[in-house]
């Protein structure tokens, strides 16, 4: 068997990274920001009616698996996706793939993921990685959030592929089966941008998009009275965790999106995208300033009304800027949509 030349390229986020690495293995020259932009990965949602460990859900991206699905569809790539009831079968079919030199994406839970830093091991079941080779009981893993190639034993791999709890992965695995000879990158990009602009400005519910950011900013002002200092700061800490952790590339994916817009300027030869990229970077810096200020409150374990007014105001400013940016970007995307 020849060595499968699988190029492990680290990414900020697992789903974009696996998608980009798999597509690139099959000859499509693509990177994480492009997958993220084409798959309409940027999002905002604050949903107090949904709670995780007693804390309202705040999200900076759509539900797991969607970025990947959209990117594949918009680029015209056919994927094979399988889930299993029987762990033995799930492992033997993976083995068969690896035998044929097919790098295979797998969904796993991170609680028992042995190579992960302990502080990141929660019962989270939507992590993605690529298995690309097996030697005996050892699987060679390209986990896009890790700097280097890692390994898993058969037992440990089976365990994480069949993690239990919310959204069980059920041994899910996927790989590209057909890549078109010519990909219409511009079309795919414009579709991706239009969807993101819609999500950020036009969803008629106040939980989502720029409206959602403003909604969170306003609700936050009531937390200290409603919940007491301790719980209010837990809520605030959760927003920062979702924004900065779990591989967002910083500022809740805003920098990654700015990198994507910069690529668009090159691909479309249109400097207006570069101007949007700059604005997006500034908004990303605003998000980071918010995260820093919020973390100081968490660290001090106490807060005053004026502290909450200040973090809330920071978010309201971001909401206004994002509303304006995505409205203007929407116009540009629609203009290009007519030309291509």
């Amino acid at each position, binding site marked *: 068997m020849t060595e499968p030349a699988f190029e492990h390229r*680290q*990414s*900020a986020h697992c789903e974009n990274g696996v998608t980009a690495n798999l597509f690139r293995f099959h000859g499509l020259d693509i990177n994480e*920001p492009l997958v993220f932009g084409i798959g309409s990965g940027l999002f905002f949602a604050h949903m107090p009616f949904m709670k995780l*460990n007693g804390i309202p859900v705040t999200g900076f991206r759509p539900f797991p698996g969607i970025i990947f699905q959209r990117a594949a569809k918009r680029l015209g790539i056919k994927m094979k996706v399988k889930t299993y009831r029987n762990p033995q079968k799930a492992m033997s079919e993976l083995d068969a793939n690896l035998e044929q030199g097919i790098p295979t994406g797998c969904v796993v839970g991170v*609680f*028992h993921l042995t*190579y*992960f*830093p*302990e*502080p*990141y091991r*929660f*019962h989270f079941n939507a992590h993605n990685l690529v298995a690309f080779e097996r030697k005996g009981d050892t699987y060679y893993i390209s986990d896009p*959030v*890790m*700097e280097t190639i890692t390994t898993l034993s058969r037992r440990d791999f089976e365990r994480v592929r069949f993690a*239990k*709890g919310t959204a069980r992965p059920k041994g899910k695995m996927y790989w590209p089966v057909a890549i078109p000879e010519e990909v219409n990158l511009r079309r795919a990009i414009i579709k991706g941008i239009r969807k993101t602009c819609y999500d950020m400005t036009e969803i008629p519910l106040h939980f989502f998009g720029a409206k959602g950011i403003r909604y969170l900013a306003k609700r936050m002002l009531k937390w200290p009275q409603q919940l007491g200092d301790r719980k209010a*700061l*837990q809520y605030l*800490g*959760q927003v*920062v*965790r979702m924004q*900065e*952790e779990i*591989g967002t*590339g*910083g*500022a809740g994916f805003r*920098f*990654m999106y*700015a*990198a994507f817009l*910069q690529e668009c300027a090159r691909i479309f030869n249109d400097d207006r995208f570069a101007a949007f*990229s700059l604005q997006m*970077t500034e908004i*990303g*810096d605003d998000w*980071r300033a918010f*995260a*820093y200020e*919020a*973390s100081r409150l*968490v*660290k001090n374990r106490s807060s005053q009304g004026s502290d909450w007014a200040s973090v809330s105001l920071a978010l309201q400013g971001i909401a206004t800027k994002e509303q304006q940016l995505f409205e203007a970007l929407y116009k540009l995307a629609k203009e290009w949509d007519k030309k291509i």
Partner: protein
Amino acid sequence: MKEKEVPQDDGMLQGKTRDLYYVLDENGNYVNALSTGWEAKNIVMQQAWDIINEAVAEVRAKVLRNEASTLLYHMEKNQMDIKLLAQYSGVSRSRIREHVRPGGLEKASQAEKEAYASSFRISVEQLFKLDDPHTNND
């Protein structure tokens, strides 16, 4: 964020990997940069673990007061509720409810004890013990 502003505040990543950021280089081009961590993130991650560790310490005290069995302690330590442990161990929820009561774990069958131990990746012997608080993060 600019390339030279990338924080290198060691902490939660434990040196096992680094975070990848998208940053602007001197010429205004987006490039990748690696970070060992950021203080703001370390603070909110520690907050998440403080919540978990406090819950474990509470259950530990409960077990010492003989208000629950050591099974409840190991569940809390593994961030598992009854539903999740039932899925991992294959033991029914009603049986688990009996076993978390004081003295309840002794009534479990050998197969159930083994199923619990394997869910927590510990030995059956350890299942009946609390961890030394000094060697653990609770």
